[in-house]
Structures are given as structure tokens and as C-alpha cells.
């Protein structure tokens, strides 16, 4: 096989893997948009907050330690214990459920029947609030995430492709794990929404709030549920991205990668988020590989948004999004 073709195949595979990571972020947006029509600007910050909380719990960090020390003149930073990863993940999920309840209780339920732009603005406020609280609670330093996720080149794939093709492909072990987790997550979400009572209720709310209310579905409960699931998805995304870069403020910027994915896949489709992620991942990597060197490189962010723009022009609702029909 010609060398350039091998390289292109390697780039495509890595693009697919990167796409899965983008899709993980996009999933959180889709869940909340589907259930409530809210574009949750805070989804990226939720990933940051969840990852910060996970590391903080694992390391036995005292939340708000700096604030406590300043107010009371104490010198406390750690509880002196470490929490195993699985238990810490479980505790973080509980924190995200509490967060979901707080968001619904103090923000969202007061905004029922408001214009979507009002709800969107509320999530912008929520994002800034959460950024500040995250910093205050766990500090601004970069934290290493040690939950046992494997990283580095997959030896097996490297060896086998070298034997077969004369060129060893690079696939990151972390990307493989992320793909497996994404598949499980999507399967779980599909099963939940199709085969459980709560899932059906969630779909009913997504279809029509008022009709769902009229048959006795609690909107408050559904919103807490969906924000909790989005919090869990944010935790998974935060863990995957945090393993690559350490847990730090920049994790909140991963939302930037989710926007073109949503525009392509549609805001209301879970499979759309996955397909959109894969299209963006492969597209941007192949473009950077083939055209990038001719125009100075660093084309990935640019390409993702240009591709999304093209899709918007051709199919505004995205590949799998619901077609918007407004009667006048």
C-alpha cells in the first residue's frame, strides 16, 4: 500500500477516535436540549466541575479550603485520606445529582414558559457561576487525574499493523477506552429512554411539555433527572479529556468542540451526536493531513466550523435533528 494511503488510514482512525471524544461532550448538550429545549451553555463548565470534584474527592481535598483559611485563619487543605477511584466516581455522581437539583430548584423552575433565549442566558450565568465556585472550591492549579485510565500507544495494534502493512499504526489506549465507554453510554441512554418508565416520561416531556404535564408527569422531576444524566455525561467527558491534559480550567473549553458536532448531528438526536462527532473528527484530521500543510496548518477548529456552516446551509436541523415546522 502506498505510504501516503497508510498515513491517511492512520489519520482517519485517529479522527474517528477524536470524534468519539467530541461526541461525549455533545451528548450532554443533546440530553438537556431534548428534554427542555435549553441550549445548556454550562455543559463544558459542568465537565470541568465534575472532574475537579472527582480529583478533589480522590485526593481528600477540603472544599473551599482557601476561603475557610482566610476567614478563620486556619491552615487546612486536606482531610488526610485518599478515596479509591470507583468510590470517588460514585460520590461525584451524587454531587452532580445535588447540583442538578439545585439548578432546577433555584434557576430553571422559575423560568418555565420563558423564551428559549431567556433560558439560554440563564445557562450562561450558570456557567460563570460554576466556574467561580469550582475555582473557589477546589483551587485553580492543574491536577493530575489518576483513575487508572491507560494512555499511550496500543502495542498490539502497532505490532499487528506493522506485520501486515509494514507501518505500525498509532492508536492511543485512552481513545480506545473512550470509544468503549461512549458505546456503553449511548447504549445505556437508548435503553433508558426506550424501555424504562422514566425514560418514556422524559421522551414525553421532550415531545410536548404541556401534554406531559396533563398526564401527570412531573416536569420538575424530569428536569432534575435530565440535568443529573447530563452531569454524569459531563463527568465521563471530563475524565477522558482531563486524563489527556490534567484537570484544569481549560476543560470548560471542550464545549467549543461540541458546537459543530451538534450543528451537524442535530440538537435532538443522541445517534446524531455520535455521527456528528465522527464526521467532525475524521473531517478535520483528514483536512489537516491533506490540505493543512498547503495553507499553513492549524486548520482543525476552522474546518469544523466551516463544515458545520455548510451543513447549516443545506440542512439547518442537522442530519438527525427534528425538522422545525412553525405554523403561521
Amino acid at each position, binding site marked *: 500500500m502506498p505510504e501516503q494511503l497508510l498515513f491517511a488510514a492512520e489519520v482517519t482512525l485517529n479522527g474517528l477516535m477524536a470524534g468519539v471524544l467530541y461526541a461525549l461532550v455533545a451528548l450532554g448538550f443533546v440530553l438537556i436540549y431534548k428534554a427542555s429545549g435549553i441550549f445548556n451553555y454550562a455543559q463544558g463548565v459542568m465537565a470541568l466541575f465534575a472532574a475537579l470534584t472527582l480529583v478533589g474527592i480522590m485526593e481528600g481535598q477540603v472544599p473551599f479550603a482557601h476561603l475557610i483559611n482566610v476567614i478563620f485563619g486556619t491552615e487546612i487543605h486536606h482531610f488526610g485520606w485518599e478515596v479509591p477511584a470507583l468510590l470517588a466516581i460514585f460520590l461525584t455522581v451524587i454531587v452532580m445529582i445535588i447540583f442538578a437539583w439545585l439548578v432546577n430548584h433555584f434557576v430553571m423552575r422559575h423560568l418555565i414558559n420563558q423564551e428559549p433565549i431567556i433560558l439560554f442566558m440563564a445557562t450562561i450565568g450558570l456557567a460563570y457561576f460554576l466556574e467561580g465556585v469550582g475555582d473557589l472550591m477546589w483551587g485553580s492549579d492543574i491536577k493530575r487525574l489518576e483513575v487508572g485510565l491507560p494512555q499511550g500507544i496500543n502495542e498490539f495494534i502497532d505490532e499487528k499493523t506493522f506485520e501486515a502493512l509494514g507501518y505500525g499504526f498509532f492508536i492511543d489506549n485512552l481513545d480506545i477506552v473512550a470509544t468503549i465507554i461512549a458505546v456503553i453510554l449511548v447504549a445505556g441512554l437508548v435503553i433508558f429512554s426506550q424501555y424504562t418508565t422514566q425514560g418514556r416520561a422524559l421522551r414525553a416531556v421532550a415531545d410536548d411539555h404541556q401534554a406531559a404535564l396533563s398526564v401527570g408527569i412531573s416536569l420538575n422531576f424530569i428536569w432534575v433527572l435530565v440535568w443529573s444524566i447530563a452531569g454524569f455525561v459531563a463527568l465521563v467527558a471530563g475524565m477522558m479529556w482531563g486524563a489527556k491534559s490534567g484537570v484544569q480550567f481549560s476543560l470548560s473549553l471542550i464545549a467549543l468542540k461540541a458546537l459543530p458536532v451538534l450543528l451537524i448531528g442535530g440538537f435532538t438526536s443522541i445517534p446524531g451526536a455520535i455521527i456528528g462527532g465522527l464526521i467532525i473528527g475524521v473531517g478535520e484530521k483528514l483536512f489537516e493531513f491533506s490540505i493543512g500543510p498547503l495553507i499553513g496548518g492549524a486548520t482543525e*477548529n476552522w474546518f469544523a466550523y466551516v463544515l458545520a456552516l455548510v451543513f447549516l446551509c443545506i440542512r439547518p436541523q442537522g442530519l438527525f435533528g427534528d425538522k422545525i415546522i412553525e405554523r403561521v
Partner: protein
Amino acid sequence: MKKFLATALATALLAGPVAAELKFPSLDYRTGPFAAGGIPFADGYSDYLTLLNERDGGIGGELISNPTCETAYNTEKGVECYEALKEDALVFQPLSTGITYQIIPKASVDQIPIHSMGYGRTSAANGKVFEWVFNYPTNYWNGASIGVKHMLDLNGGDLNGKKVVLLHFNGAYGKEPIPTLEALSAKHGFEFSTLPIDFPGQEQKSQWLKIRRDKPDYVLFWGWGVMNQVAVQEAANIRFPMENFIGIWWSGSENDVLPAGEGANGYKALQFHNVGSDYPVFDDIQKYVVDAGKAAGAGDQVGTVLYNRGVYAAMLAAEAALTAQKIHGTSKITGAMMRDGMEALEITEERMAELGLPNFGPAFSISCENHGGRGPAAISQWDASSKSWSLVTDFVDPDEEVVNALIEADSAAFAAENNIAERCN
């Protein structure tokens, strides 16, 4: 003297706000995506000035004020902060190449010197054109040439046929070393190429797959923020020899290597000052500032690379102020006087030892023509097991032949564009 100062201070406090302080404003970034790098520098800068107040009663008998303004590393906010703090300011450390470029014209009008230490506009080293801007002790072009000198040392002085890649932030800061590296490539015969990374740099798979395919001998790295941590992790992932991966000083702090764990072992970075906390000045900072509850931050950054850089910047500012006081025979100096002090600054090893910083940085002197100093830097290397940086070379002088010619050309172009007549004649 101390009694007199104490009485004077008490009287002044009773009388109302202190007006005659030496004002060293700080444009900090303790929030936002770059906070992890901004906090230690801001802590170091403020803590050293607090130390001077607490231990020495300020500079030349004048207390120091250090008002701060949060920029979040945002250029617009940085300019607003400059405007808010410029009254009576002695010197600004913009802490961002973007902010530096924006306030260069303003500072010239307001007659406030800018000290962009190891960042900003490289050709500002030419004091004949840039009257109000200083970038001592070194700059990006020097850094690039010292990186190449290190490669030459490792290859018996011959880089012919070697491949060098510049992996860089796709913006003004990251592109700064390109002209220097192109000139050095022509001089030493190495093959040079660039690989830009878009902000914020969390996804660098394309760049590292290319590095894996092309197998360059060395990768030079100009990154900042999350870009640094991801690059080090990706280099470890593809098993790039870390000793051949060399970052600029803004890509060489503990923050950049700790997330990658053992994988970061052997990564190198340029430094224009020494590393670690084994210096007498840190004992004083602990005693007079941290233990006294007067630290700017949590007091947990003392001795980290970027904290040391903040201390170094504050020390150089304080020494320039002291020089200005001597030149003008008054302790109450203005921004214009401060500029004179910066132009006459002389840092010797004896003085550094006196200040509790022996062997911390190279000796250098500044003049009307030379606002950049000699420009030496050293190579540091990360040891993942002890989680510490150490210098593995002495402070090395840059390739002045190449760098000075570029500075002359760039500053001449700036002077022509802005109709600036050369000074120092």
C-alpha cells in the same frame, strides 16, 4: 532610621491615605484558562514587593504599593487594567504578548516604562527605537538561538541534515521565533519546519501523528496553557525522545509536566533564571510574608518555576527603582525617572548574592541602546521521580550575530512605520 520611618508611616496613616508610595501595579491573571500559570507569577511578584516593605521598609525609604487588576489573560481587559492603574505607575509588567503590543503606544505617551520580561515584542530590545519598552534579561529570539546552540552541543557542533520542528501556538507569541530559526537553519544547515496548534490546544493528534511520521531529530516548543500539558502527554504517547523535546521558558513549569507523570521524564525547557527554592530570599519571604499571613496567594507556590520568575521580575523592578533614586537624588521617583533607572540597571553576581539570590540569574547591564540585556538562558530538565527541574547547562549566550541583525531590521521597520527618530546618539 527605622524608628523615623515607623513614626513617619504612623503619622501618614493617621493623616489619611498614603500618597507618596512607589506604585508597582500588577496586571494579574488568577482566573481563566491560563490561571494556573498566572497565579504563581503574580504571587512571586507581589510577595517580593511585600517582603521589601516588611523587611526593608520599602525601597530607599519609600513604601511600595502594589495595586492589582485581573486581566484573565484577555487583551481588552489588560488594556482596561492599564488605564485604571496608570496614574503614578512606575512600571508595568503586562504578562502577555498581546497586552504588551497594545499598550506600547499608550505607555510611550503616558511616559511609563513597560517591562516585558522574556515575552512581548522581541525587537523592543533596541532602546534606540523603543524608548519606553524593556525586555531584559532575554527574549524569544535569544531563546530560539540558545535552543539551537544546545542542539549543536549535543551533535558535536554539526546540525547538517538534522530535522528541527517548531511546534507552536498559532498566534503572535508562537510565531515570534520563526524568523530566527529560519536564519539559523540557513546558517547551520538543518531542515526546519513549523507545526502550528490552534488555541486552546487540547487536541493535538494531527500534529503528533505528523511528528511520528516525519521523525524530526528535535522539537522546539512555544506553547502556553493547556497546550503545554497536552503536548508533553502526546510526546510521551508517541514515545518521542523527551530529551530532544525542548520548550521555551513559558512551556517549562511544574504545571506543564506533572499531569503526564512518568511520561514527562527528561523533557527540557529553556530558563532565564535558576529553579528551586534553595535561596536565602525564600527564607525571608517565608518569614516576613507567608508566615506573617501577608502572602498574595495561598503561600503554596514558593520555589516553583513561575513563582521564581515573579520574584525575579519584582527584584529587577526594585533594583531599577533604586538605581533611579540614586540617579535623580530623590526617593520619590516618577515613571520617567524609573525609565532612567532601567536604562542604567546593572545586575552583578555580587548584588544578586546580597539580595539572597546567588547564582539565580546571569549578570547583565542595560543601556540606552540595549533594552534587552545580554540574553543568556540555560537548559533545564524535568526529573519525574523527584518531581523537580534542574539546570543541565550553564547560562549560555545567544547567537548575537543572527539575533542582533534581526532586531535591527525589525525595529528599523517599526521606526519607519511610526515615524520614530532614533535616540541615544
